[in-house]
């Protein structure tokens, strides 16, 4: 009896206690604020497990801040998210904006002591674009000369004269064995690789110039390897001993790279294949300078095809617009004017990686023990889906910029678990995208009479959330415009509770009301204006997107009437709206859209949800009527980040919208060098697009940050790339209040 009563009493007691605890956390801060035990140790709740730490293999917001902290670049993301000089002390931009020369200092060091040189960057560029790497971020470099051909393995150089063309000609492969590439593609035959090599003797893969005894792998005789680079040639490193060396890839297991003397590669498996080639247009030739209009005319010329054999032809890095004329100078060249080069210099696509570590283990080098870093922080421990441990790098060239001695990153992909960990004081700061939507009304203070928590901040995030409309199915522009006019964006912050900035315009930016005076002047707007503005260079260059189709129920109904008349029987009875699972807010937005379209237009909407990967695949194949999508930028150049996605041939153009005027204006834009004129023309193009409504923008993203009050210098910027190494913890934070 006694046991029973005890058990019963415990259960009832727990239940009562639980119900009583249904109140909200009181106090100024959200959760426990523990004592600062180590002012130089930050515990950071990240939004999941990074897919890797190799700059060439990552693309997620989870991995990139860690990669940027471990691998230094020509420039790095500053506190405000704009590039600031790092390894490069200065750079020269050519007047036609097609070439940038970076001047580097010699103080950069890898964690194994070796200096960081321009050759490391050139090597990384080749790695990024080589098909063997299959980098998800290769398109960061798509402005570069030779990019299109190299990435498809169709670009090559003739080291010696052949087919009537002089030595060193850069050519494009257009066919082989008498048939064109298109004909072979129909027959499902793949291009024989002119870079295949083999040797009669074993190949000792080693570092450049090393003795055969120092080999870390040996390729058996008569085994194919792939030639990647030859020393002594343009774009490559000098010959170590007066002799050219070859950097090759051996396809064993995960793959392995190494240098061998070129002379040892005596076999060419595809040496007798007859390739059809033609010289590339002059705007693709690195080092060639011509006025823009001449280049444009030249690009349209038809060039004659000639036939050469496999032994005349090899795909080498020199077809790309990257050169290291000396160890501390890097020159990059673009096909047309490319204002995005400076901001790309901070991205992972141009951050050097260490050849000696990558060569030995191309897929697993970025792990504790084998990783070689050049940035402020170095990786010492990593447990998958658990945590990463980074420490101050002893070899970093600017130690005074580094405040942290230790950074512990918790890989938490569950938003609630992450925020709870912050609440109980077990991590000091949490990633902006890691707070569940259901917590937002509590954090913003809505639930306790408008008293937000002092450690919660909402900041703009450079990204736009919009609805895709399948223009093949809904080919009537009036229908699409009706859908756009019927959405009241002012309701969105109430639906999502995250201070999202509702917009009808497309290119995202900072809300105009939040700009400082210098930026207001640069943008040419006044603080009381609605909308957002994209600051490209603080205080200097700014892009204001044209206004979109703002909420207007009358006009919506007028457009709908027109659409009904024009479409007749094809007018849809219901519209299906698709969204992906995994993020709470998508469902809330879907319900909001459904309610609006029903109440303003009287159209029934069916909601459909799909798992993220399936959703991506389906929308890419136009298997949707309307669907949500978001676009978070990695930089502030509006053409490459935003406008380009709606061009006819863009792979991101899911609505499959194709408009001749939009294409014509953008063709003009890519040839323009004056930054302000370019932005004005870009606005013209965006106006065409927004009026045609292939997409319906809803809001600009915001970042919801939680940081304990003792955390200092953990800067939140609009592209969510905080310089983590500058953060520190202030044990005296209470006294300062």
């Amino acid at each position, binding site marked *: 009896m006694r046991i029973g009563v005890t058990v019963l009493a415990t259960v009832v007691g727990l239940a009562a206690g639980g119900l009583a*605890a249904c109140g909200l956390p009181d106090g100024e801060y959200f959760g426990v604020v523990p004592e600062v035990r180590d002012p130089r140790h930050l515990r950071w709740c990240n939004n999941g497990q990074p897919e890797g730490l190799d700059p060439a293999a990552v693309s997620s917001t989870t991995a990139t801040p860690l990669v940027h902290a471990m691998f230094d670049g020509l420039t790095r993301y500053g506190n405000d998210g704009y590039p600031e000089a790092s390894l490069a002390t200065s750079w020269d931009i050519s007047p036609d904006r097609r070439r940038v020369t970076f001047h580097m200092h010699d103080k950069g060091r890898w964690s194994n002591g070796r200096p960081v040189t321009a050759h490391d960057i050139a090597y990384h560029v080749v790695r990024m674009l080589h098909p063997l790497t*299959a980098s998800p971020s290769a398109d960061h470099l798509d402005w570069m000369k030779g990019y299109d051909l190299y990435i498809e*393995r169709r670009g090559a150089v003739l080291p010696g004269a052949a087919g009537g063309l002089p030595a060193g000609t850069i050519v494009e492969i257009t066919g082989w064995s008498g048939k064109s590439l298109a004909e072979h593609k129909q027959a499902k035959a793949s291009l024989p690789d002119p870079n295949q090599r083999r040797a009669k003797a074993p190949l000792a893969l080693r570092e450049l110039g090393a003795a055969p005894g120092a080999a870390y792998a040996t390729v058996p005789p008569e085994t194919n390897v792939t030639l990647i680079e030859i020393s002594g040639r343009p774009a490559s490193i000098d010959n170590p001993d007066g002799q050219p060396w070859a950097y090759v890839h051996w396809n064993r297991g995960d793959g392995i790279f190494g240098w061998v003397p070129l002379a040892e590669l005596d076999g060419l498996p595809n040496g007798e294949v007859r390739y059809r080639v033609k010289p590339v247009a002059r705007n693709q030739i690195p080092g060639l300078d011509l006025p823009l209009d001449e280049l444009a005319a030249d690009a349209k010329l038809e060039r004659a095809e000639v036939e050469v054999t496999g032994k005349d032809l090899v795909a080498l890095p020199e077809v790309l617009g990257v050169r290291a004329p000396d160890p501390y100078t890097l020159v990059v060249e673009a096909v047309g004017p490319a204002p995005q080069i400076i901001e790309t210099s901070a991205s992972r696509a141009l951050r050097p990686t260490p050849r000696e570590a990558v060569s030995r283990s191309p897929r697993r080098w970025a792990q504790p023990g084998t990783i070689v870093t050049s940035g402020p922080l170095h990786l010492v421990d990593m*447990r998958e*889906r658990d945590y990463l441990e980074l420490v101050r790098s002893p070899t970093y060239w600017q130690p005074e910029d580094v405040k942290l001695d230790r950074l512990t990153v918790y890989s*938490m992909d*569950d938003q609630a*678990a992450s925020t709870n960990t912050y609440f109980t004081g077990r991590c000091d700061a949490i990633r902006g995208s890691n707070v569940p939507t259901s917590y937002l009304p509590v954090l913003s203070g809505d639930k306790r009479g408008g008293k937000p928590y002092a450690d919660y901040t909402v900041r703009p995030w450079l990204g736009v959330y919009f609805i895709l409309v399948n223009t093949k199915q809904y080919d009537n522009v009036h229908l699409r415009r009706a859908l756009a006019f019927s959405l009241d964006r002012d309701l969105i912050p109430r639906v999502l509770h995250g201070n999202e900035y509702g917009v009808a315009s497309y290119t995202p930016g900072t809300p105009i009301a939040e700009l400082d005076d210098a930026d207001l002047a640069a943008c040419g707007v006044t603080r009381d204006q609605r909308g957002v503005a994209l600051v490209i260079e603080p205080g200097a260059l700014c892009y204001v997107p044209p206004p979109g189709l703002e909420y207007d129920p009358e006009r919506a109904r007028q457009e709908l009437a027109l659409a009904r008349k024009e479409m007749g029987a094809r007018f849809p009875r219901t519209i299906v709206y698709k969204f992906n699972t995994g993020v709470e807010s998508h469902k809330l937005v879907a319900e909001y859209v459904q309610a609006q379209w029903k109440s303003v237009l009287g159209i029934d909407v069916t909601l459909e949800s799909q798992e993220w990967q399936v959703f991506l695949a389906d929308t890419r194949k136009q298997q949707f009527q309307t669907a949500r999508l978001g676009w978070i930028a990695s930089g502030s150049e509006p053409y490459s980040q935003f406008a380009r996605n709606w061009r006819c041939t863009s792979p991101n153009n899911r609505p499959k919208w194709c408009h001749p005027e939009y294409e014509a204006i953008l063709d003009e834009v890519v040839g323009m060098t004056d930054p302000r004129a370019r932005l004005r023309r870009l606005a013209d193009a965006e106006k065409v697009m927004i009026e045609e409504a292939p997409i319906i923008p809803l809001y600009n993203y915001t970042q919801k940050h939680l940081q304990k009050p003792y955390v200092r210098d953990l800067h939140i910027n609009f592209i969510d790339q905080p310089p983590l190494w500058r953060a520190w913890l202030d044990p005296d934070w209470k006294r300062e209040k």
Partner: protein
Amino acid sequence: MLRLVVTRLLGGVFVLFVVATVSFFLLRAAPGGPFASERVVPEAVQRNIEERYHLNDPLWQQYVTHLSRMATLDFGHSMKRQRTVNEMIADHAPHSLRLGLMAIVFAALFGTVLGVTAAAKRNSATDYTLMVVALLGISIPSFVLGPMFIRWFSLDLGWFPPARAEGFEGYVLPALVLGMIYAGTVARLARAGVLDTMSQDYVRTARAKGLAERVVVWKHALRLGVIPVITYLGPATAALISGSFVIEKIFQIPGLGYYFVDSVVSRDYPVLTGLLVFYVAFLVVLNLVVDILYGVIDPRTRDAR
């Protein structure tokens, strides 16, 4: 006893063989392969991948390679991650094991106490209340109980960490939540088992001899009454040790459960077959343990098998 162990082990090997075979063929029959993604993979990379995973070899050859690898416990390399399956199991199994064992211990102890008490006070208020508690334990889903416990014991009272299972106290909440479901079933099984043994002759003998009721129940009736519990807990332990996906997600524990689900969704053949074989091996061993325990507990079954 020895014959028992040997026959069971041989049977286990046969079961593993069947599992490895069936999973090999079923996976390859499912639509979509490990590399069906919306990304167009360049030719050269595609060729590399196919060579490396022998996806172009004739099926029977792939099967033979697969079996010989399984036999040497080399589960191969993940197709989606830069790790071998053995590494993944070595890294993540300990978390699942710790969690599973704590959950089992809790479930066994708490459930048995609940069930035996209820049986001792059969048809009283105590009995009904305790069985309602047991039913609640079975019925309340872990994704409801988990956040509730996190709210009460972690956020409000601050006794335990809400996630990441750091240190012993980090495993308490997830083990409680995970074990609660099993505890409920154990309670009902224990009650039924003890009720059954209470009517047996030897229990009557014990009572007749003048032993205190408490001793009769908790020492004599319990010993055999617990057999259904053990039968249930054997396979349950295997399930618990291979990881519970939901608990691991709620409490952010880097265990194996996640990979069971993930490898199916992404068609990561080596990981899935490796995990299946791992799980079945555990199952076989635990069933063997259960059988041995029968012999230990119930002298009547000892040499009859």
